[in-house]
């Protein structure tokens, strides 16, 4: 089995797969790739299982040496990759000769670029997943982001490596959206009448401290109806902010748009807390999750409300294309 030597780690590079579902009762969130569509497509190009572990790079990519060579694919955002100085395209497989160096730089487009290799990245799974959960230091490579000098192992792959590229239709599907589609949240009716036009009519900016746990937004503050007869009891999560009085902590899910006291929405992301005490005005539709993974600080977004049925059919369409033969060209 070949190895990858990390010469430069980049800003924040972690091992990710499609995450670990089923342990929220222990407070363990699913985690997984921030842009799962890109990771899956990278693996498909290489003939790996869709959920094989790859490297998720954030805003600034790393430099990697392959002493034994490899077959790789880069997906997601364009980080200006070169292999021994030669430009490497996204969305296509590329052969790495023994000793060659893959160098990535700052992003030219969105937030995250995925490096997938044939055979996947081999790490000891935690609760069935290779995904890194940074906050708790679990999973992935030693439960942390990569550092200079780390050596990663690649998994074994069978059969011949083939040259493949993604169809234009598939690349288009992976393109991140700036208008995020949502369905109503479980507390939508808590908000007063003026709140919805404000939420759906405003442009929000992604805050600087957006990360895999959540994306704080800046823009029009959503007024929270307060009932002052309520003492603050179980309200709020244990997390960074003060809870909203009266709200009883409950399970929260990926893409939930919480409105804390200050009124600035927070979108819960892959490394989310599993429960929370803020009212939720909306929830991203599953078909748009990957777009969240490509949002950079200061990017501007809007929300568009869609019907439940639309959310379902958009997800079905996305998965049909993911499963289709037209996805990949040899």
């Amino acid at each position, binding site marked *: 089995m070949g190895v990858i030597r990390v010469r430069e780690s980049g800003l924040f590079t972690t091992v990710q797969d499609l995450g670990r*579902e*089923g*342990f*929220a*009762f*222990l*407070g*363990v969130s*699913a985690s997984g790739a921030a842009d799962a569509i890109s990771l899956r497509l990278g693996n498909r190009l290489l003939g790996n299982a869709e959920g094989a572990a790859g490297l998720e790079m954030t805003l600034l990519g790393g430099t990697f040496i392959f002493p034994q060579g490899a077959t790789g694919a880069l997906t997601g955002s364009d980080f200006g990759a070169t292999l021994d100085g030669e430009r490497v395209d996204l969305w296509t497989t590329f052969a790495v000769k023994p000793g060659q160096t893959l160098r990535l730089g700052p992003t030219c487009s969105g937030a995250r670029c995925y490096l997938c290799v044939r055979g996947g990245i081999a790490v000891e799974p*935690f609760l069935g997943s290779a995904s890194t*959960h940074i*906050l*708790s*230091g*679990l999973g992935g490579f030693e439960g942390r982001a990569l550092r200079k000098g780390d050596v990663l192992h690649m998994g074994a792959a069978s059969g011949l490596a083939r040259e493949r590229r993604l169809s234009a239709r598939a690349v288009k599907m992976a393109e991140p959206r700036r208008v995020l589609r949502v*369905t109503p*949240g*479980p*507390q939508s*009716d*808590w908000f007063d009448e003026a709140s919805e036009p404000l939420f759906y009519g405003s442009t929000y900016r992604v805050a600087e401290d957006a990360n895999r746990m959540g994306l704080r937004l800046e823009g029009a503050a959503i007024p929270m*109806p307060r*009932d002052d007869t*309520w*003492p*603050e*009891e*179980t309200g*709020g*999560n*244990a*997390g*960074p*902010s*003060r*809870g909203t009085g*009266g709200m*009883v*902590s*409950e*399970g*929260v*899910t990926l*893409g*939930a748009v919480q409105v804390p006291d200050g009124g600035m929405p927070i979108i819960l992301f892959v490394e989310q*807390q*599993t*429960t*929370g005490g803020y*009212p*939720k005005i909306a*929830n*991203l*539709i*599953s078909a748009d999750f990957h777009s969240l993974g490509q949002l950079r600080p200061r990017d501007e977004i809007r929300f568009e409300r869609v019907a*439940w049925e639309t959310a*379902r059919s958009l*997800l*079905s369409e996305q*998965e049909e294309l993911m499963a289709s033969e037209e996805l990949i060209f040899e």
Partner: protein
Amino acid sequence: MRYTFANMDIEAGGGARFELASDQSLLVYFARQNRKGRAEARPLQTQITLQANERVRKLLRLLQLEPIEGFRNLHPGYCSLLVKFDALRLRHEEVEAVLRRCLERLDEVILPEPHQVEIPVCYGGEYGPDLAEVCAMHGMTAAKAIEMHAAPEYLVYFLGFVPGFAYLGGLPEALVTPRLATPRRRVLAGSVGIAGHQTGVYPFATPGGWRLLGRTPMAMFRTDRDGLSLLSIGDRVRFTPISAERFAALEKEWE
């Protein structure tokens, strides 16, 4: 208090309310909520909450013993359970129908015997940087506050926020304190905090807004342990005050 327990009705068999949380999740509530969606009872320290939470635990138990195909994750809360499902295979209506059938069987579900867990805590000083302020707010001595915090047997209502974080209910009324106006950017692992009627232990160094009374050398979440989390939903917890010397000794012993 303008809400009374009388207007809470948890029917014998059902009494559950369903709410769509996202295109791949459904929430089941076991306590009725008013117009604004707020539970019509003080959420903690009431018989109502205890009953609702017992139903949460029973439904979780049933779904764990007899897993439903297409159910991907279960997020228990105080009075609710969020079910995340595979939206390509199931629709909300189908998930609700499955859950309704489970609810009819809740009374036969036997919950596992709760573990009684004792957690040693060194209170005050650098271990509990908010103890002095909490005492000042309530006009009590540190000794009294420690005695009160260490007196009850707390119930683990659910685990959430981060791996192994148990929401413990049963904090004495006299210690009920709002959380910090400005949360700390980093709370040390093992910190024991209070917020509202809740208390809990931070398993990892994370941001946090609870007021810190002390710290335990005990690991709340360990990958080399069966069950991973020291505490499970439904467990009973007591805190035992220890000295700084004992804290250092235990920390060394459990390293």
